[in-house]
């Protein structure tokens, strides 16, 4: 759930919780009481913003996740803070989302802002390519079709310019506070012939995701090595293909061959295991203990194993001293870092200069201290998403383009 602060993200999710009947009357009562205490009419956002200071300030501090069942599915909505200084939370939220709803206030003086565009740009960079755009607070202009259309054309232009296909976005006029077009369509708005927000989200959930790692050779990310009863177990997660309980596997980087004796998923012995499963691969081959961040594979490995890559990242800090990267949660020191091109995320166009500042996006070229296994993000998300740390702080994050 993306958008500029105060455009009504939390209010909208609060409204959705109430409409779905998922929230208990007890919690609604508590939010009603809290609303009157801070002197406002009933604020659905208080169902999410449950901290006393969030309510007094009227702002969301960090991501809140709630589940809402609808028809044959369950949406998990991630409410992210709209404030510029909380982009870190927005990035965390986006990295775990399948698709996005963008909330834009149609109120005079609110509208499409830099932060609205920045959120969309970062979401797209983080692999989201389906957007449902809710034009909110339409009660402030009596659901004026011209106002709606104006926003629609502007956002359509922006989404097109950053490469989102036309079939993957939609627009809905809503009023979260007055519960219009959220769960059901208000028929008195004659010019709007589309679906409700819930139905539009449901439709977006049915658009196929971009193919990811599906057709790649088997890969297991190694989390740790466990010695047990004279055997060695490589603990990890299968991220593509199918692995089997016999034959050889290769550890990347290094190309060491191991002989597989058994596969466990939980406490069950298994003949094979597929993508998404947490497994233990038992081997009789002697391996070193420091394999965390390595990848186990069979057949021809089509990813990269190198000490150099290029990535498209979004910057939060500009302090580029003492750099390291996190890839598959494993830190590696950076020995050389160059910015090749800066892209303004608000306009979606190239910017002059080679020194990125906070809230810039850029194509960067990175050399690491040692060889690591990775892949491009569009082929394999788990091995293609990278975080850049500088002097202990989160500097930038984004996606790997190539080696």
């Amino acid at each position, binding site marked *: 759930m993306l958008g500029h602060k105060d455009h009504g993200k939390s209010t909208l999710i609060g409204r959705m919780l109430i409409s779905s009947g998922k929230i*208990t*009357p*007890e*919690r609604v009562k*508590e939010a009603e*009481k*809290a609303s009157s205490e801070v002197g406002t009419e009933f604020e659905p956002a208080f*169902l*999410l913003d*449950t*901290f*006393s*200071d969030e309510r007094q300030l009227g702002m969301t*501090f*960090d*991501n*809140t*996740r*709630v*589940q809402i069942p609808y028809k044959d599915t369950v949406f998990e909505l991630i409410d992210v803070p709209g404030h510029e200084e909380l982009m*870190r*939370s927005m*990035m*965390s939220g986006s*990295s*775990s989302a399948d698709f996005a709803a963008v909330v834009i206030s149609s109120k005079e003086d609110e509208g499409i802002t830099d932060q609205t565009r920045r959120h969309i740009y970062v979401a797209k960079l983080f692999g989201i390519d389906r957007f449902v755009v809710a034009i909110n607070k339409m009660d402030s202009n009596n659901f004026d079709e011209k106002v709606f259309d104006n926003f629609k054309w502007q956002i359509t232009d922006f989404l097109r310019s950053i490469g989102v296909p036309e079939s993957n976005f939609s627009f809905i006029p809503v009023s979260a506070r007055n519960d219009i077009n959220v769960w059901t369509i208000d028929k008195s708005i004659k010019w709007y012939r589309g679906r409700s927000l819930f139905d539009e989200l449901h439709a977006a959930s049915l658009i196929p995701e971009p193919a990811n790692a599906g057709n790649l050779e088997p890969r297991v990310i190694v*989390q*740790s090595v*466990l010695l*047990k009863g004279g055997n060695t*177990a490589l*603990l*990890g*997660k299968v991220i593509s293909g199918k692995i089997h309980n016999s034959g050889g596997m290769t550890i990347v980087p290094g190309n060491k061959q191991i002989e597989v004796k058994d596969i*466990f998923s*939980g*406490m069950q012995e298994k003949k094979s295991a597929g993508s*998404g*499963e*947490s497994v*233990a691969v038992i081997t009789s081959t002697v391996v070193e203990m420091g394999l*965390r961040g390595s990848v186990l594979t069979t057949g021809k490995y089509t990813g990269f194993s190198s000490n150099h890559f290029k990535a498209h990242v979004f910057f939060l800090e500009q302090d580029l001293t003492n750099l390291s990267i*996190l*890839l*598959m*949660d494993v830190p590696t020191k950076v020995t050389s870092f160059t910015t090749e091109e800066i892209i303004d995320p608000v306009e979606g166009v190239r910017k002059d200069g080679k020194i990125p500042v906070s809230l810039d996006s850029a194509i960067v070229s990175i050399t690491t201290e040692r060889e690591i296994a990775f892949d491009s993000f569009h082929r394999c*998300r*788990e091995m293609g*998403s*990278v*975080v850049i*740390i500088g002097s*202990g702080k*989160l500097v930038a*994050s984004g996606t790997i383009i190539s080696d």
Partner: protein
Amino acid sequence: MEDDIKNLQELVNRSVYVLREGKSRNKNVAALWSMGKDSTAMLSLAREAFLGDVPFPVIHIDNGIDFPETYQFRQKLKDEWNLDLIVAESKIQPELSGFSCCGSNKTDALKLVMDEYGFDSLIVSIRRDEHGIRAKEKYFSPRDKEFKWDYKNQPAEIWNNYIGMETEGGHIRIHPLLDWNEIDIWKYTSLAKIPVNPLYYSVKGYRYRSLGCTHCTVPIQSDASSVDEIINELKSTTVEERSGREQDKEKEYVMQKLRQMGYM
């Protein structure tokens, strides 16, 4: 039903992943175990993650007034699962309840045991759906020396990269069950055939839905006397899970204050 199992397997896989990350990233891990359904399910997940063993000590913060059934259950599972159990005694103050009781006693007892053993991380079996405040929690969350939770300044978790933060002599909370719902816990309990604390089953028309100590927990009206009956009951309830827990409701923002102070 098939969808149910698929969804459950996804949750299991994610929790196993988080438990393994927690163990790999920290030097000295411990887990809290209340003998309730959530922390018992977490121990079962740990056994799945580490080939049948729970590879860290489990701490019970014992105020001496838990139910007799809970103590029996503790002994039974300690033996069956070969648990390295640490009992941290906490004093109760009969004149206090809820906020003052949970805040001052349980948290103090936990601080002492964390110091004594030098644990740098603690597995806590909270779920996002339990309480509005818990919906903002992360899989990995730093707490300072005083156990304070700086909820305004939480580290990022981008994809599966957990960006650590200085804990300044504090510790890291590991939350493997964040994505689970109450009903998922029971479905998993059934699927993995996990032993159940008998207090969750109905006796004479009442059962406990959420377990605390004998002073602050009240049972709900229910005839559910098996895991399957509990699952059916939950499908139609509109009552909050923790409605029988005093510390959640005696005053506004009690849960926020408790969690800021380091409560579980």
